[in-house]
């Protein structure tokens, strides 16, 4: 058990962070807090990818000495590129979600999801009558 924790502490931290974000996403009623939970989940994924790419004793893939390029010197560059992709997608989805939340707030004057659902239902019933 102790060996497992010492060998995988970054991955364990990433899984726990993912759980915290997922719990936030499910349990919070405030739309902005839900989006914060989504961002925590994204952060967990970056941590996981960066940890998977790391190798002890190797340096970041930006060489200073251009004559000696061997695969034994540098860490895996692919997770770095994937983290970049993840950050961009996370920024985009967060902006879109916040815009939707702002739109909902302007219409119903509340960010609570329960209240928004009931208010919209009531609005629909008013329209039918």
């Amino acid at each position, binding site marked *: 058990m102790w060996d*497992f924790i010492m*060998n*995988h*502490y*970054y*991955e*364990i931290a990433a*899984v*726990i962070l*993912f*759980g915290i974000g*997922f*719990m936030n996403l*499910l*349990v919070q009623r405030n739309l902005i807090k839900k989006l914060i939970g989504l961002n925590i989940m994204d952060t967990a994924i970056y941590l996981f990818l960066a*940890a*998977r*790419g*790391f*190798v*002890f004793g190797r340096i*970041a*893939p*930006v*060489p200073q000495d*251009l004559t000696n*390029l*061997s*695969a034994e*010197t*540098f860490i*895996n*560059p*692919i*997770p*770095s*590129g994937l983290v*970049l*992709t993840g950050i*961009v*997608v996370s*920024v*985009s989805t967060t*902006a*879109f979600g*916040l*815009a*939707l939340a*702002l*739109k909902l707030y*302007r*219409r119903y*004057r*509340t960010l*609570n999801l*329960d*209240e928004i659902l*009931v208010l919209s239902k*009531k*609005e629909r019933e008013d329209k039918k009558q």
Partner: protein
Amino acid sequence: MTNNPNPENKKTDQKLSPIRMLNKWVNGEELPMEEKDFELHLDMKETNHPVLTVRDRARKFRKVYVVFSICICVALISIMMIATIQMPPFGEVDVPTNNEVSEKYIEDGLTDTGSANIVAGMILDYRAFDTLGESTVLFIAVNAVIILLKRDPDNPDLSEEAQDRREELIAQSKPNVILKIMASVLIPFILLYGAYVVLNGHISPGGGFSGGAIMGGALILFASSYGFKKVSTFFNFKTFTGITSTALLVYACSKAYSFFTGANHLESFIPKGIPGAILSGGLILPLNICVGMIVACTMYGFYSLFSRGDI
């Protein structure tokens, strides 16, 4: 939430241009008219709100819901923990991810792409299609935010305009001298640093995304210290759409040759130059500049759209 038909609304309704009608249809027919009734008063208080009863009803299912979501979350975490147990230890060499692909990127990256930064060479040459997708995602996101939040000049919201006027009055009565002087000192350096990070993306850590974010931050600082009107003298909606779509098109066109030839990595028409110099790396430098422009415009666009509904 009363639905008072506004006399001004009817006037504007009668002379609708086709574009306006399409806009109305896209917005869901009555939406632009109805939104006027939801005036933005910051001190507005809801009376006889149905929410109180709603809260009682929601509270009943709340506990069940929380227990249910905790179960889902614990199940998810345990599945991922089991997956983590089977993974090789952190920081080891002999893991499946350190395979021949990353070896190829590291060993041949410099000769293939001419970029001293292996990650930049990877994302903008070997995996340039991926980065084009990223830029497109940002572009689509900012378009979606524009659709949602941009104010309609034909259908102005009176309360929002009043709020703008109030903010202008506050800005005039309280001139932020310290902020303005510090911003005027800092902004040139921030822009210069952003340009440095973008232009050095292929020989040092950095690149289009980080440098563009820094330049967008400089624009945001300018807007928050001097006001949006000053920014709109050199950066308005037209320049925004022009810069972002031109940069995206230039990116797509300059990489199109390798997409169409099956990404077989043909010789680019720009010479690779000496590795480590600014003018090296073939297409990577112009692609970095394109990405930086898109990101800078998008960052400022998000801020501007969220804070006042226009660019």
